[in-house]
């Protein structure tokens, strides 16, 4: 799946130009951080298959026009409006979605779980306070909390400003990856929020 920006540009091209040959060129202009060494390498029709399981906190994927995309690809979502990103190995990064952070209002405090705590899928792992409301956050997977985002202590507003990047909440070492299968992808989540 191409990035939305790439897809948007490509759809504006005449049909002939949408072939595979031109893909690397477009990738270079809008997506790549590096310049190709030779012109020839630009036209090498090497299509990369994007991996939906690769996401690094702070990576550029899901970042468009200086703002976090509403529902980035490559993440998994829950009906409780949490997102999960997989990292190398069995690590899962959890946060709340942009939809959730907008609906909650300005976050004034984030209650983080303790590092080392062992949790079961569906259990609350913390809470977010906004507009006098304490709202529980639930973990979609079981495992052990190995890292929490301490930046949120001083800057709880990161949850509103960058819900998918600097506003991440905790990192869990997963015990059972089959729990991921019941989560939604970005399209299903978008349908879900549109219908609720």
């Amino acid at each position: 799946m191409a990035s939305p920006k790439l897809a948007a540009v490509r759809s504006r091209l005449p049909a002939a130009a949408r072939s595979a040959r031109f893909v690397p060129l477009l990738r270079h202009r809008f997506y790549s951080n590096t310049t190709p060494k030779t012109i020839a390498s630009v036209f090498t029709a090497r299509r990369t298959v994007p991996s939906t399981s690769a996401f690094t906190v702070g990576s550029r994927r899901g970042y468009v026009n200086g703002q976090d995309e509403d529902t980035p690809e490559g993440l998994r979502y829950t009906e409780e409006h949490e997102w999960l990103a997989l990292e190398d190995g069995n690590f899962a990064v959890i946060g709340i979605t942009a939809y959730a952070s907008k609906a909650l209002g300005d976050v004034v405090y984030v209650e983080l779980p303790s590092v080392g705590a062992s949790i079961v899928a569906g259990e609350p792992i913390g809470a977010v306070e906004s507009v006098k409301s304490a709202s529980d956050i639930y973990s979609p997977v079981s495992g052990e909390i190995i890292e929490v985002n301490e930046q949120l202590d001083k800057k709880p507003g990161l949850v509103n400003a960058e819900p998918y990047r600097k506003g991440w909440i905790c990192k869990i070492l997963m015990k059972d990856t089959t729990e991921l299968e019941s989560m939604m992808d970005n399209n299903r989540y978008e349908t879900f929020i549109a219908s609720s």
Partner: protein
Amino acid sequence: MLLPDSRRQLASYLCFALTDLRRSSNIATARSSNSGFHRHFSCSTISRQKKIFDLQVYISKSRSPYFNLSYEDYLFKKFPVYTSYSSSTTQVPQKALLLYTNDRSVIIGRNQNPWRETNVEALRRNNVPLIRRKSGGGTVFHDDGNINYSVMMPGNLFDRDQHAQLLCDALNPVFKQRGEETLLSVNERHDIVDQNARKVSGSAYKLQRGKAYHHGTMLLNSRLDLLSSLLHDSVDRSLEVVEGPGVASVRSPVSNIGISNEIFTDAAIMAFEREYTAGGDNAVEVTYIDEGSMTKEEAQDINKSIEELQSWEWTFGSTPKFVHRFLLEDSTLAVSFTVKEGAILDLESDLPEFKAFKDKIIGTPYRGPEVAAIIDSELWKERLIRAI
């Protein structure tokens, strides 16, 4: 996590009736009142179909703040979970209203710093318990001139102002009838204020998967002088400063509404019955509760909760990492404690009284007597026992 459905509120304000009506299955009503013009409603011509609830009312006879808050938590735990993606439209949703009055106490929000938001020394001196509740928001003063209401609702129907507005609409006629000027309304901070913009009720909320509650105070005939000295006239800021994250209280001028507990209770229950039930003899089930009316299982649960509320670890120890500075009369720093998870993480001081004990004191629980036991200076022992 559960989200407030602001779109539903927006819909009813702007009269984009189609979305709202579809959700409350109101299309039949709308068409019959405006046949042929069903796209152009004005708010006044829509007869909003009342959503019917299975309304349960509980009135607590206990005055213990520990029992009442624990019972509230217990009720909330028992309250059914509704999720918009799993509830059936034919199921009658529940709504619970709990009314309780506490003996004199100060209640802080879940994520607040008690040293910053209250005068801990004055609380101790006046023998007023400090309790940390489970919902968010700021600090309030409870006594027998204050009544608390708690409304529990399904998650997809969470609303911050609806019930406060209902109470205003229930009480305003009472004042009019008594010839009083008082006129209540809900302000943008979700507080209930009178005609002079004085706060008479504060609100706080808790949201969990599929359910939520809104609870608030109501100043009937409360000791506002005590409220002031325990909350407003906090610690002398020239001698003590607390820095750290956590929710800050917003101070407001307050006022009593001057009606009795009974009148408020009757007005509130009648309003809820009128608004949320179909009426009739058995529309509302009112249950009186106190410590003695609990079953064995209930008592077990509630007692555990009471213990947690009474524990130092929950009330003080769970405060997020902060720095507590004590100053000398000339405003220079005497000592600064960095406290995390209820224990001293670090100490900063130029005074020999503290420097000598720096290593010993790190790791000590942040409790007056324990900190005082470590240092030598009598003057400081006394001051710290009072202030911490």
